[in-house]
């Protein structure tokens, strides 16, 4: 077991992530231009979606699939609620709602890294988890904003002075028609329609270079996470509404807690080893793309220096480096 743990630590994607962290800490000017990172991210979402769809087309639509999708939706709706109430003593209402939404949603790259972890150990996982992931991106946004508006009283956010309030339809569109959600679900559907024949055509594209693309993306994520960590250190000297220790503390605690809740659900649903790890990691991961984009629009009072930094600078590296192998260890211990 410690063997697989060590194997993960030296896998190319993880090492490239660490290279990114180190490069920034050493103040190197290594940089992945934004369009390159976008290209790699489009590739990863398309590839994981397509692979998931093909996998789904090969296994019959079963109770397992429904259970997994149900568990995912339950997590996405319930996590923000208890996170919100748990942290609202330390954060003000807007920040608490944004953090709740962030941790209720998911990080696609963390998920992709977990699937690569499983693939490299030869452990099977269900293609429907790609759908589960896509389904989990949006609901937390709606739940988080609902919690905020309830607490803040209707109309607070409706700016005096003419700033139009984000309408519900605008919000739902932002949440459910977010580019990455559409790309994953669309690719999933296309993979599902095409099945094995489609995979024969696209395998050299969606499979062969996959690990390499993941390496480049994680290299970039390492650069970005480390920059955020540095900004965090710099910010710690200024006075801030939330002390640094609370931010870092919750950014470590929440993935552990949410991951455990997800793991419990996976065990209750009798999921296989691979599926259980994926659900756990979906629970533990936090969004740094879809949720912040929606929050800036609908809840600008929340400080991205808090929720985004927690998700990107602390929780993401934690999940990538420790979360995946540790949760896997726990699952293996439970299984035996």
């Amino acid at each position, binding site marked *: 077991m410690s063997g697989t743990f060590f194997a993960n630590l030296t896998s190319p994607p993880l090492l490239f992530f660490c290279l990114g962290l180190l490069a920034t800490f050493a103040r190197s000017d290594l*940089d*992945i231009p934004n369009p390159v990172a976008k290209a790699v991210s489009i590739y990863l979402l398309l590839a994981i979606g397509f692979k998931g769809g093909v996998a789904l087309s090969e296994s019959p639509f079963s109770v397992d699939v429904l259970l997994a999708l149900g568990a995912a939706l339950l997590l996405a709706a319930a996590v923000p609620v208890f996170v919100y109430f748990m942290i609202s003593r330390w954060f003000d209402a807007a920040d608490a709602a944004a953090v709740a939404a962030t941790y209720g949603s998911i990080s696609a790259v963390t998920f992709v890294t977990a699937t690569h972890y499983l693939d490299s150990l030869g452990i099977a996982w269900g293609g429907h988890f790609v759908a589960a992931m896509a389904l989990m991106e949006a609901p937390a946004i709606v739940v988080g904003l609902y919690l905020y508006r309830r607490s803040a009283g209707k109309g607070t956010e409706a700016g005096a*002075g003419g*700033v139009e309030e984000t309408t519900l339809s605008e919000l739902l569109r932002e949440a459910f028609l977010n580019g990455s959600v559409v790309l994953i679900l669309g690719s999933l559907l296309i993979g599902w329609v095409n099945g094995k024949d489609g995979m024969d055509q696209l395998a050299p594209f969606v499979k062969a270079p996959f690990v390499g693309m993941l390496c480049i993306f994680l290299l970039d994520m390492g650069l970005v996470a480390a920059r955020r960590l540095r900004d965090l250190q710099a910010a710690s000297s200024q006075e801030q509404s939330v002390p640094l220790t609370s931010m870092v503390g919750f950014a470590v605690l929440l993935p552990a807690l949410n991951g455990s809740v997800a793991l419990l659900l996976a065990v209750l649903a009798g999921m296989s080893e691979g599926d259980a790890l994926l659900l756990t990691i979906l629970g533990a991961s936090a969004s740094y793309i879809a949720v912040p984009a929606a929050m800036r629009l609908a809840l600008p*009072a929340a400080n*991205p220096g808090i929720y985004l930094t927690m998700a990107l600078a602390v929780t993401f590296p934690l999940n990538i480096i420790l979360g995946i192998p540790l949760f896997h260890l726990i699952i293996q211990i439970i299984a035996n």
Partner: protein
Amino acid sequence: MHPCKRIEIIVERSQIDRLGRLLAAAGAPDYTLIHHAGGHGDRGHRRADDVTDTDENCVFILAVEQDEVVAAVVEGVKPILQRVGGTCLVTEAVWTGS
């Protein structure tokens, strides 16, 4: 060649659609938009090259002739700037249009 005001509005990327609608409503539908800007302000350093687009600024440039439209634009953006940050600069200029 007409005297006009040059309005320059710097906001973050998430506000582009909102600002577009606001400008149209204020009677100043025409603008030029520069994407992918970075910057530094009260909310610290912002990089145009982050994976997460919230960290990106953009620059709207507007030539507006009527003073009441200028006032409407400035009044309109003020609450956006207050809520999400950003800057609005107005300069005297002379306009040669199409």
